[in-house]
């Protein structure tokens, strides 16, 4: 059966891929919550959760189950539809970004190649940025619809923080694009396979991008939207049950996806470091599997750094946050951009 130029097999392949990536995102996000608590425990010299199952590996399920059984409360004064739309948007936006990330080397089969990537579009990384820029609405709409001053304040804080940190993030990205010369994620990865990882040539760019990623995910030291001592619980104050769960869970999915984006842009994606894997002559499926595991290892490392920072650095004050974003990171990112452009021009002439 053929619909337009698209075969049924193609649709099936993509549906399976999308389902497995969403499943993977949920799975990783689930276990990042456990890892966060375990690492916090380790850093604070205590055990962390260890009652549900061996070593506490069932803890995320217990947490999820608890959230499902909580009472669902909708404030009478709030706008019901928008109140529901907030967490839904937060979740959708968190999941959509993963479409353009290449998760591993393409699998060669007898019928053709299957890319481990939902869509390898020309706009690649720009799609990620467009989704990130829409991500503000989940927080803003949820915070406004709660009809609570603290929620609204936290939502506006969160939104202005995200808008501010998008700018240095995209400026840091431009320097990477100068080098790779393509917006396509697959080409960014293959460029790094041939020429070495971008983090070697763009250490400053990576640093800026990483700081901005922390701010975009609302992670410590930039978790101002949920500053408990000033704003009670933040923009999700009025939320309970699984709607709250969606907000909290979306944060972990965002962490996972932004780690994957950073691994792709700066750490060579699914490239295996220090070796020329193309000369091994491996079975294609085995090679794909290994490259996928390497990608996951990089993502896990970045997730660990996210958690490590959370339990090391205290929260910024709001004016410090804005100062850092506008007065330090943007000029630094601009400097990095001009410097990279000048060096590239000099090397090419």
């Amino acid at each position, binding site marked *: 059966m053929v*619909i*337009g130029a*698209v075969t049924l097999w193609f649709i099936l392949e993509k549906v399976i891929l999308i389902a497995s990536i969403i499943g993977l995102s949920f799975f990783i996000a689930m276990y990042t919550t456990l890892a966060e608590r375990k690492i916090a425990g380790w850093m604070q010299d205590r055990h962390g959760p260890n009652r549900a199952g061996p070593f506490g590996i069932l803890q995320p399920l217990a947490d999820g189950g608890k959230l499902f059984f909580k009472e669902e409360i909708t404030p009478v004064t709030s706008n019901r539809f*928008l109140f529901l739309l907030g967490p839904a948007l937060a979740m959708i936006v968190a999941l959509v970004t993963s479409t353009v990330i290449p998760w591993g080397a393409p699998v060669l089969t007898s019928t053709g190649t299957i890319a481990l990537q939902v869509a390898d*579009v*020309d*706009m690649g990384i*720009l*799609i990620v*940025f*467009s989704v*990130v*820029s*829409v991500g*503000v*609405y989940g927080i*803003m*709409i949820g915070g*406004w619809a709660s009809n609570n001053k603290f929620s*609204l304040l936290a*939502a*506006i804080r969160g*939104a*202005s923080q995200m*808008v501010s940190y998008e700018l240095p993030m995209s400026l840091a990205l431009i320097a990477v694009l100068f080098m790779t010369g393509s*917006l396509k994620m697959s080409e960014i990865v293959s460029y790094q396979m041939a020429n070495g990882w971008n983090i070697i040539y763009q250490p400053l760019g990576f640093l800026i991008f990483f700081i901005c990623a922390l701010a975009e995910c609302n992670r410590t030291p930039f978790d101002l939207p949920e500053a408990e001592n000033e704003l009670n619980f933040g923009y999700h104050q009025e939320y309970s049950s699984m709607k709250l769960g969606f907000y909290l869970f979306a944060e972990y999915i965002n962490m996972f996806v932004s780690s994957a984006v950073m691994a792709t842009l700066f750490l060579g994606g699914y490239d295996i470091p220090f070796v020329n894997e193309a000369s091994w002559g491996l079975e294609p499926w085995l090679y794909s599997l290994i490259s996928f595991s390497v990608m996951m290892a990089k993502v896990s490392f970045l997730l660990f750094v996210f958690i490590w920072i959370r339990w090391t650095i205290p929260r910024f004050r709001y004016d410090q946050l804005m100062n850092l974003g506008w007065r330090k990171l943007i000029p630094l990112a601009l400097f990095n951009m001009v410097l990279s452009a000048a060096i590239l021009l000099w090397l090419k002439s």
Partner: protein
Amino acid sequence: MSISAILFWVLSVAALFSALMVVTSRNPIHSVIWLIITFFAISGHYILLNAQFLAVVNIIVYAGAIMVLFLFVIMLMNLNKESEPARHRWLQLAGGVSGGALLLVLVAALKDTELKSQQSLLLEGHTGLIKTLGQELFSTYVIPFELSSILFLSAMVGAVLIGKKD
């Protein structure tokens, strides 16, 4: 009906309906949200015409940045149904008449253009791709491009100057 025709009709209906809802919603927040949906529908149209860059930038700039500012302003000013000042009948009438006149002028101006006879290129044509756009902007249209960037720069300097506490 081909898949792009189906998409075209779905997107057109979505764009027109949400644009109507922008105007008719009583709550300004709802208007903004409908406007965001309109921008997404228009981006869908751009993708149908293979203008990928335009589609993505439309979402980043309009749906992502400008509408956030709109929401900011409306949320901070706390505009809503209760605080909306009652409008006179004749004011609404004048609005309707002037809007209708604008529609009339637009239709009259566009009905004899060549757009009607030109078939739009669906899912082909590389005008909208980033490579073509970049080459055009930095060769054929380099002066208007640089001029508009100076305009942006002066606007930014102005904004910083206004925002500065003295």
